[in-house]
């Protein structure tokens, strides 16, 4: 029994848990979530055991073919789970953060009905299992299956709390857009198989023709459009802000911190690992384009929001745009930065959504205009939200500073225009978060709330862990950059090595010469200028009426599911035209 044979276990445990949880709810109300916590603990344990091999040296591959159907002469028929530093890192993040979120669910929602708790634990575990498997798999149709499993679980979770009818509305939009994305991914994967006879990412990499043919480019367009919908990148984002609003805080955190990243990760794997510069056409330019548009418009719409969770969701659109730009740059600093930012985003966005959820749960207020004065009434939540906001804003000493700095550094040399736009997006992001923090937490409030519940123990644990993570990843970036982000990015930047390793069960990852230099004065000055400009923008924005372009942009988001489907299909057509034309 080798270590790689244990690879499916981290996925299987929560899958079993999701079956057991609804049954266990009959015995005791708290049992389903306890089972979920145990299952995730087990997953995290197995994944941690594998990190010792996978992250040893500069990084190794750990490959397992399900049912031991191993490749014969470079042809793989079995489904491969490949733990590379990128996929394993993501799976471990899902397991650990998932565990924290389940603990906070248990403490905030431990008193709802038995059946509801059973269903909640079951769906959460199903989603987490699908995400872990999606990060580990190296097979184009298997990734589609996990995509659909994650999608099914997310539909259930979006529509779970039926006391708010908007939950149904959000679930319906999520269903329509994600179903269409599922078709796109499915056709894309099937087209690649039918024209090149390969499903395995490694084998596909070798089998794809050296110059892009129509069929391979159409397949690429479909795959990009499909996974971009999951990632919530514009113009495929219609479901994302809606789906985050009506669900409980920990579930929003799960969507934003872990689920949307799956889309980005899949895009990065397909565009950078399966395809190569000669046969992917203008895919990188296209992704940079939609990424920077998402980063800018997402930030603007976040600045304009009154609903706190919706604001954070729009910021997720913006951050996913930045990640897309980072991965699409194909430049080592930016890719290392993007991997690091993926990790950081999961930490600080989970923290912010937990805070937002806690505030909504404790006071019943969802809008920023109804909040305020929480510094005195909920000091722990206020501190946690502030840390999250500082991290996103890229204040030196917090994790956002490092990852955004690395992405910007990578963009500066290659694409100065995109660099300038990324700086602008960062300024608007700072403004949006500064405005939210001020209006929601620090603003004075004279009249008392109807009720303000105390911060529960489970939430304190989650807040504390995430705050610690945000600060540790900001103060000590280089161990993380060198040991985690660097090997993970190196996997993406060395596709032939990945293909060889997946097909031959083993391989090592080359080292990239990327380090983060805290003492670099120019970076520090740029970050401080961004923050200063952002705060000024926030102050100005609080005093003026909503500018005309922002109103237009908001009107474009009509809330009608037909329109959102139209945007997504237009986006698909656009991606296709750019890639083939």
């Amino acid at each position: 029994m080798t270590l790689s044979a244990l690879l499916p276990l981290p996925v299987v445990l929560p899958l079993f848990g999701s079956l057991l949880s609804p049954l266990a709810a009959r015995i005791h109300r708290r049992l389903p979530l306890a089972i979920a916590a145990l299952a995730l603990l087990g997953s995290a344990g197995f994944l941690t055991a594998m990190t010792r091999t996978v992250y040893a040296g500069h990084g190794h591959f750990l490959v397992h073919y399900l049912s031991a159907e191993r490749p014969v002469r470079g042809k793989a028929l079995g489904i491969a789970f490949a733990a590379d530093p990128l996929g394993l890192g993501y799976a471990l993040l899902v397991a650990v953060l998932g565990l924290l979120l389940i603990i906070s669910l248990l403490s905030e929602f431990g008193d709802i009905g038995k059946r509801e708790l059973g269903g909640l634990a079951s769906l959460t575990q199903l989603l987490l299992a699908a995400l872990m498997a999606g990060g580990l798999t190296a097979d184009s149709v298997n990734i589609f299956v996990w995509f659909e499993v994650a999608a099914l679980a997310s539909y259930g979770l979006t529509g779970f709390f039926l006391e708010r009818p908007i939950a149904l509305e959000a679930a319906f939009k999520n269903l329509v857009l994600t179903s269409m994305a599922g078709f796109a991914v499915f056709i894309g994967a099937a087209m690649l198989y039918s024209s090149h006879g390969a499903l395995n990412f490694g084998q596909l990499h070798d089998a794809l023709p050296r110059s892009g043919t129509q069929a391979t480019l159409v397949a690429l367009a479909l795959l990009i459009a499909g996974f971009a919908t999951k990632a919530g990148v514009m113009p495929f984002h219609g479901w994302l802000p809606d789906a985050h609003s009506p669900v409980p805080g920990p579930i929003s955190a799960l969507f934003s911190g872990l689920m949307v990243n799956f889309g980005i990760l899949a895009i990065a794997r397909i565009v950078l690992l399966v395809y190569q510069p000669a046969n992917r056409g203008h895919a990188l330019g296209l992704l940079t384009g939609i990424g920077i548009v998402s980063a800018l418009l997402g930030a603007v719409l976040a600045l304009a929001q009154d609903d706190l969770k919706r604001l954070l969701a729009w910021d997720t659109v913006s951050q996913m745009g930045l990640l897309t730009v980072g991965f699409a740059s194909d430049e080592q600093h930016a890719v290392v930065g993007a991997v690091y930012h993926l990790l950081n985003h999961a930490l600080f966005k989970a923290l912010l959504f937990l805070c937002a959820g806690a505030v909504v749960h404790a006071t019943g207020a969802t809008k920023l205009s109804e909040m305020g004065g929480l510094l005195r009434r909920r000091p722990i939540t206020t501190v946690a939200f502030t840390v999250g906001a500082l991290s996103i804003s890229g204040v030196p000493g917090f994790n956002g500073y490092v990852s955004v700095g690395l992405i910007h550094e990578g963009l500066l040399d290659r694409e100065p225009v995109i660099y300038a736009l990324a700086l602008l997006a960062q300024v608007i992001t700072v403004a949006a978060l500064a405005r939210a923090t001020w209006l929601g937490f620090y603003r004075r409030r004279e009249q008392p709330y109807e009720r303000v519940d105390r911060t529960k123990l489970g939430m304190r644990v989650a807040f504390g862990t995430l705050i610690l993570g945000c600060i540790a990843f900001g103060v000590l970036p280089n161990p993380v950059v060198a040991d985690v982000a660097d090997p993970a990015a190196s996997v993406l930047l060395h596709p032939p090595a990945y293909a060889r390793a997946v097909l031959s069960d083993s391989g090592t990852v080359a080292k990239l010469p990327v380090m983060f230099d805290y003492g670099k004065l120019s970076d520090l000055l740029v970050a401080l200028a961004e923050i200063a400009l952002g705060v000024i923008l926030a102050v100005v924005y609080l005093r003026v009426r909503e500018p005309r372009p922002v109103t237009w942009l908001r009107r474009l988001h009509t809330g009608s599911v037909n329109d959102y489907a139209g945007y997504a299909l237009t986006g698909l057509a656009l991606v296709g035209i750019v890639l083939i034309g």
Partner: protein
Amino acid sequence: MILANYLTAATLFCLGAFAVLTRRDLIKIIMGLSVMEASTYVLLVSMAYRRGATAPVLAARPTGVTEKDLAHGNVADPVLQNFCLTAIVIGVAVTAVFLTVAVRAAQHYRSVDSNDVRGLRG
């Protein structure tokens, strides 16, 4: 590789997309998506077919087909047909969830018009 099937798949996809884009009735939107989904099945089954291919049942050699023909893969590709089955199973589950949401929405909003179900916007 059957041209007529490809055209059918494309037409079905566009018809479904047309329904999703223009019909405001939630049930019709779901039907549109089901039609789009059906188009993916037609496409996959057609892609699995090769000229003169038989069904991928290899228990006994069909008459008029030598073992060499079989070895050269003169059967329809079972892998794509298998994906089709997987997708049909997933599709049924998704449609069930879809209809559940539509029924609950109808109960809450007393309407199945997507224009009435748009509280979240901007």
